[in-house]
């Protein structure tokens, strides 16, 4: 029987090239998929000769596709960084109070002002950052355990606080109106994505992606124990903090537009490591591309399958859970790759 380390993986460059080509293909298909001029895939001729279809393409589909790609890449790469730095395959980018903070912020805004996309985005982004700041400041006040353990505990505490606050807001919300809006936001979706929302997160997400990409070399070393990292000339405590903050800020920006989209940051890094191994030089960019691809596919289904929008979080969860089961059932164990 072959050992896991003996299983020959394809060359990372080929994987990246194949995934890039697949992404371009899916983008092309997604551009011509929707509810107008017909439900499903329309021919390019039908779109290009119809003024309204062209407007829909420019005003609705393109910013939405770009948002899906950007958010998918950020969530997946952030998830990858979290899993590597925490040496835990089950953490995801919303871990440090960010997801629950964003959810609390969004719900509060919906309750106070009704569902107004721009206000909901602002409020969720602000509370996501507050969640992050609280987690870090709490971790620095804890007096036991290593830095990572303290951070995990602080993240759990902050998430629990925001979660109870969210529960209170949902309890207060009118079941006929606001509760429906809150629930829909919590399920995630890109139905509000337009050029404004895309451009509002573009800079933050791009910088976050660039920093993580440039640091992919160091993530390999940072994922080892601190003594090994020191030996390699790295100050692990500072650099881990900086990477976590970068990943979390990117995530905060992303979910301020998409709402809570689960599983992308959890399952995609596993898939990436499955494809190219756990060397972050390759696994991180593969995570980015896979995340972008995964979210784009889910969103295309979400907006084109039925007359009403399907929440993105539901689709990513279905796909993610299925992939998770397949990966865990596979003989090539996942745990070995982390």
């Amino acid at each position, binding site marked *: 029987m072959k050992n896991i380390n003996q299983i020959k993986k394809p060359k990372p460059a080929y994987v990246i090239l194949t995934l890039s080509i697949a992404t371009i293909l899916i983008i092309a298909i997604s551009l011509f998929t929707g509810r*107008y001029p017909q439900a499903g895939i329309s021919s390019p001729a039908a779109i290009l000769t119809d003024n309204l279809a062209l407007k829909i393409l420019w005003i609705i589909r393109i910013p939405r596709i770009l948002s899906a790609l950007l958010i998918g890449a950020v969530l997946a790469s952030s998830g990858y960084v979290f899993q590597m730095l925490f040496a835990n395959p089950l953490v995801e980018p919303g871990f440090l109070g960010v997801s629950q903070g964003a959810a609390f912020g969004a719900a509060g805004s919906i309750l106070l002002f009704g569902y107004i996309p721009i206000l909901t985005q602002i409020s969720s982004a602000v509370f996501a950052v507050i969640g992050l700041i609280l987690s870090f400041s709490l971790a620095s006040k804890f007096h036991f355990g290593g830095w990572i353990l303290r951070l995990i505990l602080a993240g759990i505490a902050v998430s629990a606080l925001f979660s109870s606050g969210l529960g209170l807001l949902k309890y207060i919300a009118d079941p006929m*109106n606001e509760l429906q809006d809150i629930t829909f936001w919590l399920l995630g979706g890109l139905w509000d994505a337009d050029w404004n929302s895309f451009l509002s997160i573009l800079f933050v997400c791009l910088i976050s992606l660039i920093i993580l990409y440039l640091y992919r070399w160091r993530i390999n070393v940072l994922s080892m124990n601190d003594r090994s990292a020191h030996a390699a000339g*790295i100050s692990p405590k500072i650099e881990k903090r900086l990477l976590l903050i970068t990943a979390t800020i990117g995530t905060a920006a992303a979910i301020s537009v998409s709402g809570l989209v689960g599983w992308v940051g959890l399952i995609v890094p596993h898939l990436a490591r499955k494809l190219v191994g756990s060397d972050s030089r390759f696994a991180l960019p593969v995570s980015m591309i896979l995340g972008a691809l995964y979210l784009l596919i889910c969103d295309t289904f979400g907006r084109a399958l039925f007359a009403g929008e399907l929440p993105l979080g539901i689709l990513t969860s279905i796909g993610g859970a299925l992939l998770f089961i397949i990966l865990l059932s596979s003989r090539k164990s996942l745990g070995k790759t982390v």
Partner: protein
Amino acid sequence: MKKIFISKPSILPLIFILLFFLLLTSCSSDEEAANLNGPTSNEQTIGILEAGESSNEAVHQAVDSLGRVISLSGKPASIIIAGKATLIAADALALFTDYRSKILAMGLTNQGLGDFYAFLLPNLLITERLPHTVSAEEIAGLNPDLIIMKDRNYSSLGEKLHKLGYPVFSINLENTDDYLQEIQELGKLLNQENRADEINLAYSSRLSYIRENLSSLKETQKENILLLYTTISDGITSFQVPPASWIQTKLVKEAGAVPVWEKTAGSGNWQKVSFEQISKWNPDRIYIISYKTPTTIYMEEFKNSSLWQDLSAYQNNQIKSFPADFHNWAQPDTRWILGLQWLAKDLHPDIFEIIEIEEELVSFYKDFYGITDSSFFNTILDRYRKSLLTIEK
């Protein structure tokens, strides 16, 4: 040796920039936030003169509830009612009887008690109804001449449709004062100003009658009453009271009573209240509202509850359900006037002895919706009668 690490200090300023821009992104949206309800009226004029359409057709303009000026050339031949709270918009449009046949598609209108539109628009199959989460693309695929929606949908759906070039008319209809004005504006847009006048006359004559007859009522003569929106979830019944500005609170005041919750209610939303708070208020009368289900289950529960038996309203047999037909009458749809008449009569039977609610009900559907079908009246009266429940001590 090849340098494979980027230098350490380079990441710090980048992170600060990142954090700064994330917060800046949030703050820089002030301008957009100031225009949450859409652009100002001067920026909003929408001309829908289609290519090839006769330019000498009259252009009808109206101001919607968001202050936007909407222009239509000629009469819209196809209308879509979209987004959440479709019922409110649908009921308003259906008052303009000529335009019912122009409804191309609309959202779901069954709140749980039945669907008035299954009767009113039998050709509009339930399978053709749009989900509340309908996308702009889906609506564009139907290519309507006009889209009407509750204004809370504008920022998430209406704005996209506006950008695609569709005229979107937003309505609010949340309070009695603005109601008639909004109907007037809708009439202007549809070139049905006479019909709008008729509708408003029908409303204002009923409203004026109640106001005139209650004008001499002293504050001390007014009873303290509580409207309780009741829901059940996971077997737990919860109670909510409306904000002071909502139509439910206005109905109570117009009907010559004091809403006990008015001073403590929140400003923007239903507010949950506990039984302790209800006991503290201990109102003279309690009216139970349920939008999704018949009130029967709640009335049974309260009747058998030892807690409720100590309330004054219970002792005086004054815990009643607020009436409904296809929809509960305590909400900002067209039936609010029926709710007001019923409540006024229930509170002041001597003053409003002349009002016969069943006759008013039939008259409402005749005057407002032009319905003459006697079987419909049997149905509607049956629904109304079944909705009237009182807890007898």
